[in-house]
């Protein structure tokens, strides 16, 4: 499909996440893509080894992404679920299947630039085969008005010897009411990394995220990193859960939270449980405020305390993950 009419307004917010939005446009960037405009599929582009299918249902779509056995691609698969209306309901049922021995990156963007009371729901299933390397990154933008009601649920199965990385980023704009559940099941020798970042900026923002990894296979390993920031009455509650249920599995949960301004609530908390005596699960958390010295250093460059704080939050949320 060539030159479709997709509202660039929806894609614009990718720039805030430092992603070139042209990559998402069919006929422009490389890589497979699927674009949804409210409840209509406005573009699908396939590449060798990757099958993308969408079926429209009354309030949304069922989207299938199939990565065929042995497919290794550099260019990410681009998925965009957008709405440029203010209200409405969008429901998405993605099924993402990566067959054995595949390497793929998926970049999904959920963007509702004019949202003022709209609802976006997702119910996703991911099946990742053996010996795969899959990265799923999802960025969100819910506009600057009052945000959206957003409730995605994902079940992710990671097969033997596979590496799965999940990146969820909701740090731009006003999120609104957001409730996210992610359950990841890790099989033998698999590696799971999950990074979740969210920023609540005012009293309209209430974000709850539960990110869980179940280490079900021998020698499975995982790291969850949660970063939460809340200011001016925003509320962000994040729970990073890891269960060690198999021999010699190893999990770690790392949480950082920053809370600023009156009435804000911010919690990023680890919950860990080991049911297998040979498993090891650990956690660490850093809470509170930025060190005064960091603020002083930025203020000595002429920034006000508030500007300095905003720079530090921006830095914390952008910080690249190192494993």
């Amino acid at each position, binding site marked *: 499909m060539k030159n479709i009419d997709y509202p660039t307004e929806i894609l614009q917010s990718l720039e805030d996440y430092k992603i070139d939005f042209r990559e998402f446009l069919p006929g422009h960037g490389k890589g497979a893509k699927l674009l949804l405009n409210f409840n209509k599929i406005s573009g699908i582009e396939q590449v060798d080894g990757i099958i993308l299918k969408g079926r429209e249902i009354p309030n949304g779509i069922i989207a299938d992404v199939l990565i065929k056995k042995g497919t290794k691609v550099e260019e990410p698969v681009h998925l965009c679920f957008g709405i440029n209306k203010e209200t409405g309901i969008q429901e998405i049922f993605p099924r993402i299947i990566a067959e054995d021995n595949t390497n793929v990156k998926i970049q999904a963007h959920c963007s509702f630039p004019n949202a003022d009371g709209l609802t976006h729901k997702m119910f996703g299933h991911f099946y990742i085969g053996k010996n795969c390397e899959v990265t799923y990154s999802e960025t969100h933008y819910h506009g600057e008005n009052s945000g959206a009601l957003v409730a995605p649920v994902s079940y992710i199965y990671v097969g033997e010897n596979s590496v799965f990385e999940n990146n969820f980023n909701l740090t731009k704009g006003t999120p609104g009411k957001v409730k996210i559940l992610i359950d990841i099941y890790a099989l033998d020798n698999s590696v799971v990394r999950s990074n979740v970042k969210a920023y609540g900026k005012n009293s309209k923002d209430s974000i709850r995220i539960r990110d869980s990894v179940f280490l079900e296979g021998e020698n499975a390993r995982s790291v969850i990193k949660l970063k939460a920031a809340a200011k001016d009455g925003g509320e962000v509650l994040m729970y990073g859960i890891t269960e060690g249920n198999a021999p010699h599995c190893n999990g770690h949960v790392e949480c950082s939270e920053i809370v600023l301004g009156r009435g804000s609530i911010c919690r990023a908390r680890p919950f860990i449980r080991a049911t297998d005596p040979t498993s090891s699960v650990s956690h660490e958390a850093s809470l509170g405020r930025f060190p005064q*010295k960091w603020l002083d250093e930025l203020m000595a*460059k002429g920034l006000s305390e508030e500007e300095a704080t905003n720079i530090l939050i921006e830095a914390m949320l952008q*910080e690249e993950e190192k494993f």
Partner: protein
Amino acid sequence: MLLELKEVTIPTLDQKCVIINEVSFGIKEGSIHAIIGPNGSGKSTLAYAIMGLGNYKVLHGKILFDGFDITNLSITERAKLGITLAWQEPARIDGLSVYRYITLGLKDTTKMREKVVEALNIVNLEPEKYINRKIDESLSGGERKRVELAAAIAMEPRLIILDEPDSGLDFIVLEDFMNIFEKIKRLNMTILLITHREDIGMVADYGTLLWRGDHIITDVFPKVMLRYCAKAGLKEFCKRTLFKDGAICFDDEYIDRIFREEGVS
């Protein structure tokens, strides 16, 4: 005088003891002015108080910048007037790039890239190699300090306070640092330099000696250094190394007199 301290007293945060005791001296515009003194004599405290950090409040006395009383101004206000400080151990902030960090203090936002490149050049960091690096643990201690210096220079301040810019650096880079100070000076910035090293201090035009919170002397740097040696009882060191091979020599008689004044023979 660009900066003047008038009987400045700084207590500890709990106000139980005095760290800086009625200190008065001035810093001439365009000069390199070193503050020396043993560990704990109050050098950093004085630097922080000039910058206006919350934990170092002036109890009595005044700080004047260009004749203007800044004693009660915030850090931000002082920075906007043209004062900045490069910390002894600057923070590592993982998510910030060198580029972003240096641009934070720029007065106007035109030609940002050129200004960053220029500042990195002054501190001898290759711009292409460093501009996109993060201000994180991957920078060595010396590189981090240079980035700090570059950020301070890019602000084009009138007074730049350097708290032990030499600490943690080896002799090989010493000369390089001396060149950097000279370059900063040529940009018409005044430097307040805190250092433990007499060789670094030698670039200074003037100096101030602090001793347990008291002001001992402010004068041309060699004289200040000589007084420091006298107070510390380092006559042999002084005669042998410091002023014989150094740029400025005092005759032995003069050295003896200064030592006598300090009650050391």
